[in-house]
C-alpha cells in the first residue's frame, strides 16, 4: 500500500447557497488509479476542479503531499488535467500544444530537450508524424491523445481526467480505456478519473469513489463496490441489481417474500428490516419443484452472451441473466446461493431502485403513447410511479 498523496478534509462547496459538495473526506494514495463515479451533478467534477486548483472549497482543506494547498494557483501545482472537451490550443499545432507545458518550465529547457520530450510523448500516444498538424484537423480520438500527451509531458505527479472518453464512440472508448491504464502504469503516477460510466470505472480503477448529491457514498476496490454495495443507490448504479425488502432473522439468515434464505452477511440486529441485493447473474434457473421461489417469465431479451429475462415473483419483477432460454409465460423455479445474496442496511435510497416492473412495460408504454396520447388515460396512469 503506497502512501497518501492528496487529502480532502471536510470539503464543502456551495454556489450561492447551493451545496454541490457536502463535507467530504477523501484520501488519494500515490500512484493509484482512482475514479470518481456518479451521475451528473453529484459533485465529481467539482472535486476534480478543487484538486486541480481551478476552484477553492468554500470550507475545508486540501492537502498535497502533506502541505495545505487551498490557495495554491493551478500553475504552481504539480497536477495536470485532461479536459472534458480537450481544450486544445487551436492557434498552435500538435507539437506546440504538447510543448506548451515544457516551455513554461523554469529554469528554461533547451530546445533539444523540449523536442526530445515532445517526440517521446508522441511515441507514447502513437501520434508520431502528426507533430506539424493543425489540432482542428485531427479526429476526436487523436485530439484526445494530444490532450493526454500535453498533460503528461511536464511529468506531473497526478493526472486529472474529466470524462475524457465521453465524446468517443464505443469501440474507441474500449481501446482508450486499455491505453489509459497502460499509460498510467508506464508513467507510474496517480490518475484521478471522473466518469458517470460504471463499466469504465470498474475496468480501469484501483479505487472507485461513488458519489451522489455532493456526498461520497462508498469508496473501495471495484470488486468490493460491485459485490458489497453499501446502499441501494450504489447497488443500482454499479451494474444491474434486483433490490428487495427483507428482514434479517439472524446472522446468516434473511427473509424475502416470506421465505428464509441462507446468506453470508452478519452483524445486523435481530429482525432488522434490510435491503437485499441479488445480482441478475447470481440467480440459477432450476426445475419448478427444486426452486426456492417460483415465478412467471414475462419478457425475454437476447443480449448476445446471455438472455435478459424478466420474471414476476408475486408482482415484483426481477431481472435474471441466463444462458438458458425459458419461454414467455412459462413458470420457472430459481435458486440463489448464499454468496449471491447481499444484505444492506436501509438508507434514504431504499425503495427507489432495483425494481424491474417497468422493464417490459416500458416498450408498451412507448408504443401506446404514439397511438393514444390521451391525457388522464387510465392505462397511462397505471404506469406512473
Amino acid at each position, binding site marked *: 500500500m503506497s502512501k497518501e498523496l492528496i487529502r480532502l478534509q471536510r470539503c464543502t462547496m456551495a454556489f450561492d447557497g447551493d451545496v454541490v459538495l457536502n463535507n467530504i473526506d477523501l484520501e488519494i494514495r500515490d500512484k493509484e488509479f482512482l475514479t470518481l463515479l456518479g451521475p451528473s451533478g453529484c459533485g465529481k467534477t467539482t472535486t476534480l476542479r478543487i484538486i486541480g486548483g481551478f476552484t477553492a472549497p468554500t470550507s475545508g482543506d486540501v492537502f498535497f503531499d502533506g502541505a495545505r494547498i487551498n490557495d495554491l494557483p493551478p500553475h504552481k501545482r504539480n497536477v*495536470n488535467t485532461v479536459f472534458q*472537451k480537450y481544450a486544445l490550443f487551436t492557434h498552435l499545432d500538435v507539437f506546440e500544444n504538447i510543448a506548451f507545458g515544457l516551455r*513554461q518550465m523554469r529554469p528554461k529547457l533547451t530546445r533539444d530537450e523540449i523536442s526530445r520530450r515532445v517526440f517521446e510523448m508522441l511515441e507514447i500516444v502513437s501520434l508520431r508524424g502528426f507533430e506539424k498538424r493543425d489540432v482542428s484537423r485531427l479526429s476526436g480520438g487523436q485530439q484526445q491523445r494530444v490532450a493526454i500527451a500535453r498533460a503528461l509531458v511536464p511529468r506531473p505527479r497526478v493526472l486529472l481526467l474529466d470524462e475524457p472518453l465521453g465524446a468517443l464512440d464505443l469501440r474507441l472508448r474500449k481501446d482508450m480505456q486499455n491505453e489509459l491504464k497502460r499509460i498510467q502504469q508506464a508513467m507510474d503516477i496517480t490518475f484521478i478519473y471522473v466518469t458517470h460510466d460504471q463499466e469504465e470505472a470498474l475496468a480501469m480503477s484501483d479505487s472507485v469513489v461513488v458519489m451522489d448529491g455532493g456526498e461520497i457514498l462508498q469508496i473501495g476496490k471495484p470488486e468490493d463496490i460491485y459485490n458489497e454495495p453499501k446502499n441501494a443507490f450504489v447497488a443500482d448504479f454499479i451494474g444491474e441489481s434486483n433490490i428487495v425488502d427483507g428482514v434479517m432473522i439472524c446472522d446468516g439468515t434473511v427473509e424475502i417474500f416470506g421465505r428464509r434464505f441462507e446468506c453470508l452477511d452478519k452483524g445486523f440486529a435481530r429482525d432488522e428490516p434490510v435491503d437485499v441485493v441479488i445480482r441478475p447473474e447470481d440467480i440459477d434457473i432450476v426445475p419448478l419443484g427444486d426452486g426456492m421461489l417460483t415465478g412467471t417469465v414475462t419478457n425475454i431479451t437476447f443480449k448476445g452472451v446471455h438472455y435478459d429475462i424478466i420474471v414476476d415473483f408475486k408482482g415484483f419483477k426481477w431481472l435474471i441473466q441466463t444462458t438458458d432460454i425459458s419461454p414467455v409465460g412459462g413458470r420457472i423455479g430459481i435458486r440463489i446461493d448464499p454468496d449471491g445474496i447481499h444484505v444492506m442496511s436501509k438508507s434514504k435510497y431504499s425503495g427507489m431502485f432495483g425494481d424491474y416492473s417497468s422493464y417490459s412495460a416500458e416498450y408498451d408504454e412507448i408504443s401506446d403513447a404514439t397511438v393514444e396520447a390521451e391525457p388522464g388515460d387510465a392505462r397511462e396512469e397505471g404506469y406512473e410511479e
Partner: protein
Amino acid sequence: MRNNGAVHGAFRSAAMRFFSPRALAAPYVVWMAAFVVAPIVFVVIYAFTAGDGAFTVGNFAEMGRFVGVFARSFWLALISTAVCLALGYPAAYILARESGRVQRAAVVLIMLPMWMNFLLRTYAWMSILERNGLLNRLLGALGIAPLDIIYTPAAVVIGMVYNFLPFMVLPIYSVIAKIDRSLIEAAADLGAAPRAVFTRVIAPLSLPGVLSGVTMVFVPAVSTFVISKLLGGGKEILLGDLIEMQFRGAAYNPRLGSAISLVMMVIVIVFMYFMNRFGEGEEGVAIL
C-alpha cells in the same frame, strides 16, 4: 383541364423563379451597382482622363505637391489607431470577463454615442477643447494653466479616437468573449503564470479581433475630413479635406480629386491585404 394545369404549372414556376432567393437580392445588387460600383468606375475614369476626355497620367503627376498631406494623414491615422488599440484592448479584455449583465450594459454604453450624429459629436468636442471651453475652465478652476489643444493635430487625434474607439473595442471584445474558458484553465494548468496565459494564449487568440479593429479604425481615420476641419481648424489639411476641396469649392478639380482618391484607395487596399496576410491561419477574421 390538362392544358390548363400545364399553364398553371408554368406560371407557378415563373413566379417561383422570380421570387427565388437569388432574386430577392436584386434590390441590394442594384443599389450597390448604382452607388458603390459605378462611382468607383467614375473615379477611375476621371483619374485617368484630362479635361478633353483624353487618357492621361497628368492628374497623378500633379499630386506630387501633396506628399505632405498624404504623410500627415497616414501619420495621424496611425497615431489614432495606436491610441484606440491602447485604450480599446484593455477595455475589451476587462469587459469580456465581466458578468453577462455588465457586458450587455457596457456594450450599449459603448454604442450609445454612435446613435448620435457624427457632426454633433465633433461639435461637442469643439466646445470642450476650445480656448474658453469646458476643459480649460475645469483646469482654471483647479489653478492649472489653460491648454491650447483646439486647432492642433492633438485635437484631431482626440476627435478621431473618440469617434472610432467603439470600432476597436467591439470586435476585440467579441473575439475575447468567445475564447473558451477551459483554454485559459488549460494554460494555467500547464504551468503558465497569468502573464504567460495572456501572452501565449489570450493575445494570439484575440489577434483576429485586433486586426479587424485596426482596419475599422485606420480606414475611416485616413479619409476623415470633418474632424480635421472642425478640430484642426483647417490649418493643416488632411487627405479627406484635400479631396473634398477638389470636388466643391474654389479649387474645383474633380480629376485631381479622383486621382487622389484612387491612390488612397489603393494604399488602403494594400494595407488591408498585408493585415489579413499577417492574420492568416486565424480563421474567421471577423470584419464586423
